């Protein structure tokens, strides 16, 4: 959290509704996302109990495990989830072969309520991807396949740039600040109560109501313990007894009752999920969101190809080379996302203006005709002087960029904090023109522009971005006097990844080349032991 986002939390306390902390949406939201709300049985390791799932808000699909402690039923659940929901949904995006150097035009997106939903997805992937489809511990073929897909989704969530699997609470909390703590924001109902309070109630009242599990059952995967005690335990015991006694009609009656009971726990969250989707869609998308979604489309395309080639299940642990590669990639992505969000969103850029890594101001001088060098080797290097009230900590010699002209770089030549100290450097071709207009000093009116005492003048030498070779730079290709500009040291550029050895050339210090995965009895039978 930063001063700006924390200030917004304070404002939310005062105003009684959530406050925006972003001016644009920084995540991709699909036109047809798959909403997945899983429930699990308490106490067990990833024992699915039920799921409400679907890509049509009017047609949720309920899947139930009537005996969640039975391993076979667990895998039947996974098989149904796979063949009737997830795999057809994914296939819809993987029709045909993309062109040679093309990704699929879109990718399937899954939305879960919260971080615990992501964790459930990862564990369901882990518990299914190693299953065998023949022999003693056989499961339907769709089970290990959906396991690979769920693992793919869960792994992508580690990528800061990825939107293929989003926990809705995190996505919403990244854009709105509530008047409660971050821990309380993990409750989807309470978070939405702050963002869009129901009519006639304050956000605070609505958020408190949202904590009552009778009105707003938990968004899963954990169920409300009192529901377990008062409803679930009796129904599951009933089904078991009827099954032992072989009484089909009783089984059917209990099963229907369990479905009804589970729907009461899931439907409120289903409505909240789509409301959250609407809220995210109500924000205009950031300009660089599509670029990040493209990386998701590519990884989806690779995953489809990998599976069509009979891809092995993802390893339980990364090999040395893959781990190093992945870490490097995540770090670079993190930096890239930070830069892109600042470029797309002045409220994010404001964070950097707070810390002095960016400044906004007015161009008070521009020389589009400045050259460096002589004769044929002369190059055009216009200069501008930006007058800013922001505290600038950027040293001379640093490169800066204005997001609205992100192909053009500015080299900081000088940044005196006093107007008198701003002298025309000898390198200026037209020193005579270097006379700044006087700015009226408003003299410290609170909230108004600062006086000269708090001002900085930054001299920038521009290059690139279409300023051409012959002076003067064409109009519009560089800032003109009077323009408001914003420059930052954050630069969005591709960094070539460092070289990593091939898998086969993993050095002995790192365990040598990793073994290929071989299907084995231990993995195939682990769920039953």
């Amino acid at each position, binding site marked *: *959290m930063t*001063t700006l986002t924390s200030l917004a939390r304070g404002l939310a306390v005062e105003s009684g509704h959530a406050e925006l902390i972003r001016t644009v949406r920084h995540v991709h939201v699909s036109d047809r996302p798959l909403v997945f709300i899983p429930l699990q049985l308490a106490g067990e390791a990833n024992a699915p109990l039920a799921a409400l799932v679907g890509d049509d808000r009017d047609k949720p699909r309920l899947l139930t495990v009537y005996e969640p402690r039975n391993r076979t039923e667990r895998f039947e659940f996974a098989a149904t989830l796979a063949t009737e929901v997830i795999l057809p949904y994914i296939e819809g995006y993987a029709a045909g072969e993309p062109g040679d150097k093309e990704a699929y035009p879109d990718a399937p997106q899954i939305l879960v309520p919260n971080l615990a939903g992501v964790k459930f997805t990862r564990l369901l992937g882990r518990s299914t991807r190693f299953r065998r489809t023949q022999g003693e511990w056989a499961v339907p073929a769709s089970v290990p396949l959906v396991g690979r897909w769920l693992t793919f989704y869960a792994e992508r969530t580690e990528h800061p740039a990825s939107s293929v699997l989003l926990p809705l609470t995190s996505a919403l909390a990244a854009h709105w600040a509530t008047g409660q703590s971050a821990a309380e924001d993990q409750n989807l109902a309470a978070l939405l109560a702050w963002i869009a309070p129901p009519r006639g109630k304050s956000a605070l009242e609505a958020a408190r109501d949202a904590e009552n599990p009778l009105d707003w059952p938990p968004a899963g995967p954990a169920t409300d313990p009192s529901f377990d005690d008062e409803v679930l335990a009796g129904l599951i015991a009933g089904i078991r007894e009827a099954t032992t006694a072989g009484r089909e009609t009783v089984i059917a009656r209990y099963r229907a009752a369990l479905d009804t009971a589970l729907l009461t726990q899931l439907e409120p969250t289903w409505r909240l999920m789509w409301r959250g989707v609407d809220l995210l869609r109500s924000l205009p998308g950031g300009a660089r969101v599509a670029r990040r979604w493209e990386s998701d489309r590519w990884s989806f395309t690779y995953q489809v190809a990998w599976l069509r080639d009979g891809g092995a299940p993802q390893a339980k642990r990364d090999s040395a080379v893959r781990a190093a590669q992945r870490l490097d990639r995540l770090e670079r992505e993190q930096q890239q996302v930070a830069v892109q969000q600042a470029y797309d969103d002045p409220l994010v850029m404001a964070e950097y203006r*707070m810390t002095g890594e960016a400044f906004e101001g007015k161009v008070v001088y521009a020389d589009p005709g400045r050259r460096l060098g002589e004769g044929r080797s002369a190059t055009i290097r216009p200069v501008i002087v930006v007058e800013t009230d922001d505290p600038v900590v950027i040293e001379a010699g640093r490169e800066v960029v204005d997001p609205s002209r992100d192909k053009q770089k500015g080299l900081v030549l000088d940044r005196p904090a006093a107007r008198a100290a701003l002298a025309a450097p000898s390198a200026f071709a037209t020193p005579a023109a270097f006379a700044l207009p006087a700015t009226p000093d408003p003299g410290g009116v609170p909230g108004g522009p600062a006086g000269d005492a708090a001002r900085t003048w930054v001299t920038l030498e521009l290059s690139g971005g279409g300023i051409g070779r012959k002076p003067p730079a064409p109009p519009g290709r560089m800032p003109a006097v009077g323009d408001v500009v914003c420059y930052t040291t954050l630069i969005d550029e591709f960094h070539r990844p460092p070289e990593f050895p091939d898998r086969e050339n993993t050095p002995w210090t790192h365990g040598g080349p990793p073994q290929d995965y071989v299907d084995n009895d231990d993995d195939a039978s682990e769920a039953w032991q």
Partner: protein
Amino acid sequence: MTEHPTEARLAKLRGGQPPQGYTARMIAALASNPGCARRSILDAAGVDKRRLAAYTGYPVPFGRSPFDITRGNSFEAQVKAEGAAQLLTLLRDKLSLDISEAGYTNLDEVGGSDGFPLRHERTRRLLTATPRQRGTMFDHPLLRFPVGGRYAYLEPDLVAFRHDDTFHVVEIKSFPVIDGQADPARVSAAAIQSAVYVLALRDLVGQVAEVRHEIILITPENFASRPVATSIDVRKQLGVLRRQLARLDRVEDLAAALPLSLTFDVDLDDKGVPHRSPGDLIGALTTVDASYAPECLATCEMCYFCRDEADGATGALGKSVREDLGGIEYVGRALQFARGEVPVPAEMAEAAAILRRAAVLRGEVLQAAV
């Protein structure tokens, strides 16, 4: 027997009900928020906080699912079956021991009506006696632990494994370890609780034997019920506990500062119906200062009560928010500084300037005054 004045004071605070014992979880929660006098006093007096919270209109949904309880019990029973055979195998492998068998003493059944001090004495006698076998497991020892200048008794669900002159704390938990990884929140909760046991066990047997700072966690492996042992170094948790517990005010001093008439008794009649008005009880609770933070939501039964009371405090939004807002205590005040509405005291100048700047920037970007 003459009662210690503090004991009498605490008994009066509790009222007519039997005291609630301490648990390692309570001590861990107290250590995570040592500045909370309300929790210190309520715990020391053994007040039933859950009932108090519910009766004052702030019930907490801290229930545990019957499925979780069943699973926990059956896993524990499985590991301890047949003289803790599975447990011994795991310990032997984990500690590389060359013993073929070990003794197993369950202290759970010790003298029903005896008070805690007597039962604790018996635990001490058994644990410090020269063992007949090289390895002995003591199940459910009754430990004691100094909290706020008094001893708290603990009936932990743990096995103390004595091997030669070394004790190991063994905790059995039913959450899974999958591919060597478990839920970090549950592991850290188990580690801090185990650290409480290590300290309590050292208090008990420190004269005769060493208590290892590596505790052994027994959990189901992957998706099945096969147990696996993991050793966890709790030196960091031991340090945190010692430091935080040293910061706890002495219960004696806290109790002495309270009005003599104060009590948290809900005044139950013989049919179990409370007669005290909730408003009166709320008045009593507010006599003792609390120190609310969002972390309380996971650990303290009084959390909803204290949260409402802390409405408008920056700390209720989280420690980092409070720090971002310059450590200013109230949201209203921070916003006044941010808007430049009030004169700023010299010592707040820096914090206020940052807030002011944030407000100006936010207003500028959103084109609406903050």
